[in-house]
């Protein structure tokens, strides 16, 4: 395997609604920032891969227009996934393993505000038996949470702790959309919105952009003083039918973590892509995280949840902390699909 590292990360400030700019106009400043941070221009990029979905803004082939933001003419080596940018990063990592190119730009974006996001998300469900019922994303998370509570794996008290800690940590994150400081006990006094979920258990709806630069071996060492090396990366998927899964556990996360070598060393920091509070508890168990690991210091997806983007942001947040020297080894997790259907685990390390 080739050593591949994240050498730069940038993200927009995430907002409920970006009214003035279209997707490519949102993207360009972030791509410019991440390339400048790596000391590169598009001429230095060997491969470009993006993640997004046209359903969010309701614009067919919007990713083709967004590609204009990286100057794809004359043609560049480029690909797109209809997924979170974390999977675009995975494709770029595979491309770098092939050895033809040494650098890759990965970007992703969400403009969720033009549509009704919880309804838009129903379009990813089984089109025959589930999608026609239009079960919105919050209701599905509520069903999952109820099952986890009934199974004794989650409590509303622990969920409130996750909400309070995440929004408090988000106060230190200038890119966060939702940040506040309130004790968990106060949160439980509020009414349920979609039982058993309260408002604080749910993520905000966000418009936002993120980008990462990957580089292999010497290309990484030459461009970054402390690259965040990808020591293991793996993703696994569970069945599409919700009734075929144990929604109170995340076996795909557990398997991906094993294959990525998560348990081969200490985990100092973890960024877990858990849009709902109960999902963080399910994922912590699947990842085997204990009290020694700092979890979601950025505030996680509860602080900002740009679709197709919050997963790559998790990877970028861990990479940034390793490149800063704050931590030496950490893990980033990304999820996709309904109720944690598909999960990616990326283990990152700095040089000792």
């Amino acid at each position, binding site marked *: 395997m080739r050593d591949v590292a994240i050498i730069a990360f940038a993200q927009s400030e995430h907002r409920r609604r970006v009214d003035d*700019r279209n997707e*490519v106009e949102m993207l360009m400043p972030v791509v410019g920032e991440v390339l400048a941070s790596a000391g590169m221009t598009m001429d230095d990029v060997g491969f470009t891969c993006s993640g997004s979905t046209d359903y969010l803004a*309701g614009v067919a082939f919007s990713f083709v*227009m967004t590609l204009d933001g990286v*100057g794809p*003419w004359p*043609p560049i080596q480029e690909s797109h996934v209809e997924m979170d940018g974390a999977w675009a990063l995975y494709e770029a990592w595979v491309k770098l393993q092939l050895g033809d190119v040494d650098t890759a730009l990965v970007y992703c974006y969400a403009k969720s505000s*033009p549509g009704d996001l919880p309804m838009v998300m129903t379009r990813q469900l089984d089109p025959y038996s589930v999608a*026609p019922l239009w079960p919105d994303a919050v209701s599905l998370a509520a069903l999952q949470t109820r099952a986890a509570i009934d199974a004794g794996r989650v409590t509303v008290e622990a969920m409130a702790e996750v909400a309070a800690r995440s929004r408090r940590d988000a106060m230190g994150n200038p890119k966060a959309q939702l940040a506040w400081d309130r004790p968990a006990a106060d949160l439980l006094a509020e009414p349920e919105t979609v039982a058993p979920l309260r408002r604080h258990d749910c993520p905000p709806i966000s418009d936002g952009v993120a980008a990462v630069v990957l580089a292999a071996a010497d290309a990484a060492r030459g461009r970054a003083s402390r690259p965040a090396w990808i020591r293991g990366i793996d993703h696994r998927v569970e069945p599409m039918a919700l009734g075929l899964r144990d929604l109170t556990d995340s076996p795909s996360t557990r398997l991906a973590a094993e294959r990525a070598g998560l348990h081969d060393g200490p985990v100092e920091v973890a960024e877990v892509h858990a849009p709902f509070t109960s999902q963080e508890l399910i994922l912590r168990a699947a990842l085997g995280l204990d009290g020694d690991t700092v979890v979601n210091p950025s505030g996680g997806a509860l602080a900002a949840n740009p679709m197709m983007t919050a997963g790559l942001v998790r990877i970028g947040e861990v990479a940034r902390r390793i490149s800063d020297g704050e931590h030496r080894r950490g893990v980033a997790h990304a999820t996709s699909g309904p109720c944690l259907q598909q999960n990616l685990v990326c283990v990152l390390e700095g040089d000792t």
Partner: protein
Amino acid sequence: MAELTLPASIAGVEPVRSVRTPAHLDYQFTAGEATSRFLRGIAERRILGERCPVCEKVYVPPRGACPTDGVPTAEQVELPHEGTITSFCVVNVAFYGQAMEIPYVSALILLDRSDLPIMHLIQEVAADEVRVGMRVEAVWVPDDELAPTLESIRWFRPTGEADVAVDMPGEGEGTGLGSWPELSPGSGA
């Protein structure tokens, strides 16, 4: 396919052979800064392109980025209402929602001083007389019907000027249609 044993209560029902699942989602589209500037211009009977600060190409309608350089196109350029047909097709097939009487012509029109053609209708000329290189001009709706939409230009019609030679934008780099970077410059022409 495996044999299924149905419960007695539904044993005799007609099998499901298809399912209709209508879907409808509403969106509030954001044109973006560059396209909004363009559309506001159209409502004033002006065609505003935008120039790339690096390669100086002028794009219309502007989307906000130069696809060659990946930078914002911030400088607005007011364009003439005349241009040249660089490609066209004659529509002979009726389809649902069709607004024009067939046969009609849909064409790529390179407005003078711009570098990327717009697509619009060609009218006031027989479909079989339309040709690449033909000079055309915009026919606008009346002032009280002007709105921020390309439909404020009803169609284009011939100016009667002599045809001009057409140099398709990007021709020197391949047209992008079946052209690949390993082809030598110009071979896509």
